[in-house]
């Protein structure tokens, strides 16, 4: 009997033909698994917000109408909706600091990466030095380390060369936590919070996928994307665990 990574309750797994031939230990129990809601059905083609139609949402239209932001971030992919269970989970993971919880979503993130932005260099959103000391780990770096698995033996499916996460960006200033700001404050702050750490020629012409934990207004991701774009990146999309 194995234990749920999140609630420590027992996991009951039944033996089926599939589990017999492809044994795979589930990490979460059925109840925890069911409490997180995968994004399915019609979504905004830019930011993956679940909605009733397939046209871009109001927020994305506003971003795209603004000439300085249009096309900076080609597209965002998210796994889960930011429901109460996800909020609670992120609090345990990020704020209370149980870093290994993220493993529960490792294979899903991998699949998403291979399906949507295979071959792009994963770039985690950096934390400021102070925040990194306080938290002890960078949550985006954990997620970024998941998307590129070591190549599997006998697997012909995976052909693109796997990329190590690249720590291309750094924070220029210690900022107030995003989660403590209002929507207006987030969107209007006109500062440039990120700086590129590498030479321009190492970025030029490459594709990147920026990795973060939550997409709320899209400001953070776009600001990071803009910095890469300025240095000549060819294509930038993003993957987040949750879509707020």
């Amino acid at each position, binding site marked *: 009997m194995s*234990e749920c990574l999140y609630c420590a309750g027992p996991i009951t797994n039944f033996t089926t033909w599939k589990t017999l031939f492809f044994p795979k230990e589930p990490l979460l129990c059925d109840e925890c698994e069911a409490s997180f809601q995968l994004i399915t059905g019609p979504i905004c083609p830019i930011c993956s917000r679940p909605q009733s139609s397939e046209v871009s949402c109001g927020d994305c239209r506003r971003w795209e109408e603004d000439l300085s932001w249009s096309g900076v971030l080609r597209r965002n992919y998210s796994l889960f909706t930011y429901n109460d269970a996800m909020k609670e989970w992120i609090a345990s993971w990020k704020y209370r*600091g149980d870093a*290994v919880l993220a493993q529960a979503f490792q294979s899903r993130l991998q699949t998403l990466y291979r399906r949507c932005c295979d071959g792009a260099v994963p770039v985690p959103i950096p934390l400021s030095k102070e925040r990194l000391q306080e938290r*002890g780990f960078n949550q985006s*770096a954990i997620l970024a380390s998941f998307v590129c698995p070591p190549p599997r033996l006998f697997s012909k499916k995976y052909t693109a060369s796997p990329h190590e996460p690249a720590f291309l960006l750094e924070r220029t200033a210690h900022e107030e936590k995003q989660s403590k700001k209002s929507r207006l404050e987030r969107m209007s702050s006109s500062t440039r919070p990120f700086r590129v750490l590498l030479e321009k020629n190492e970025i030029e012409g490459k594709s990147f996928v920026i990795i973060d934990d939550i997409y709320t207004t899209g400001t953070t991701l776009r600001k990071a994307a803009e910095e890469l774009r300025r240095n000549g990146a060819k294509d930038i999309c993003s993957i987040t665990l949750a879509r707020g």
Partner: protein
Amino acid sequence: MKMIHVQLPGDTCALCLPEVLAPKGGTISAGPDIISRLPGLSAPSPRHVSDFSPELYQTIQHVCMGKELLYEELPWDWRDLEPFLLARILVLRPGLTPTKKGWVCRRCGNASPRHYGVLDCARCGTKCSYCRHCVNMGRVSACSALIAWNGPPLFSSSPQPLLQWNGTFSAGQKRAAASIVEAVETKSERLVWAVCGAGKTEVLFPGMERSLQKGERILLAAPRTDVVLELLPRLQKVFPDTAIVGLYGGSEEKDCLAQLVIATTHQTMRFSEAFDLVIIDEVDAFPFTADASLVNAVEKAARSVSARIHLTATPTPFLQKQVKKKLLPCVRIPRRYHGFPLPVPRMEWSGAWKRPVTKGRLPKKVLRWCRTRIEETIPAFVFVPSVTVLEEVTAILQKTWAAVEGVHSADDQRHNKVQRFREGTVPLLVTTTILERGVTIPGVEAAVLGAESTVFTESALVQIAGRVGRSSENPDGDIVFFHAGKTEAMTAAVRHILMMNKEPLPEEASNE
């Protein structure tokens, strides 16, 4: 943060300090390394240094005394703490200690390798293990230091009476209270085995007063937040001049240094060698027996020489065995405060109930029982084995009586529903085992549906029967176990109650 061991000139043993505070003139004897890899240090006594502000000394004493806290939990910088560390008034201890199999956590005692995680730690720059068991209280990793107070204690003794209570004791209570005072005086252990509704809390008052007068610190550990919240005002009322604090998940006064601490068992993990009298309420209750590290936490919170009182209505087989072997002195209160015997449960066979319930029907006997209670306006509990059954049964009953409610542990409306049940607007409450303890409702009757389920242990069933007949106006009441086959636990529960009812009262015992 990496740590070093420094040997200062003229000092007897090495000091453990963070790397940033490396003092001039000292020789580094070990490190820099993560604290759990440094060798152990012998128990040091404070040095006589006094170049710090008295105000800071006092606040640090208030926050740190009797506890072991993480650097991240303290509002100060290493620079502020420097003089105290140099004076050895504060000492650093490794949060995790390596063992053969992995680690043991100093705060919660977790030693099981599967409850450890590894992360790329930005603080020490290595792959750092951390304890997942108590991560909710702030992460203790291999590079974390726990900061402990090593200076002089705070409270002084006072011979004045502190207890303001003018109730009276029943004969059984009087005997138990005297035994507790004796345990406080001799710093020994006692099991107080009192039936539900015997007035366990009051029995503690004289012993607690004695301990407070001696200038000792007291910990009252309770299984659940509800119990802490109920006890806090009662004790504040009878000990008006004593500093009392209630600690539970989400409480505000985390750093208050009180002489009497009422805490959930989880919160006791922060303390270390702090208390001279430790009272454990409902020793057999979840999560205390379920979780070995909580036992460890309470053990750690107590001083090495201290009095320990275990309170319970239903001792675990382990405790009962210890009593039988005369390893644990035990005092019993076999009668309720009002002197009437405990209502004895009836057992009723109700057949296979699971399938009818999923199809929306209750067994006839159960339905009839519920109908009579609601029609005669007798408040009634229906205990069920699981949340799924709870939802089904509540839905069935609500079809006929819309005011019926169901509560379980994850219900946000729990306190509100129980309150409405107390007021009488909810005629019948369907519940899981969460309400088996501590809820007193006059004249209530109870039924257990599916009593054969394994969640209804002997102690759970005795506690459920203990909800009935609590007030002296209604000392009797119906308690039924509806079952689909008697279990050992059910017969043991009935035997337990009959035995307590037969037990001679103290006066009768003394007449023999």
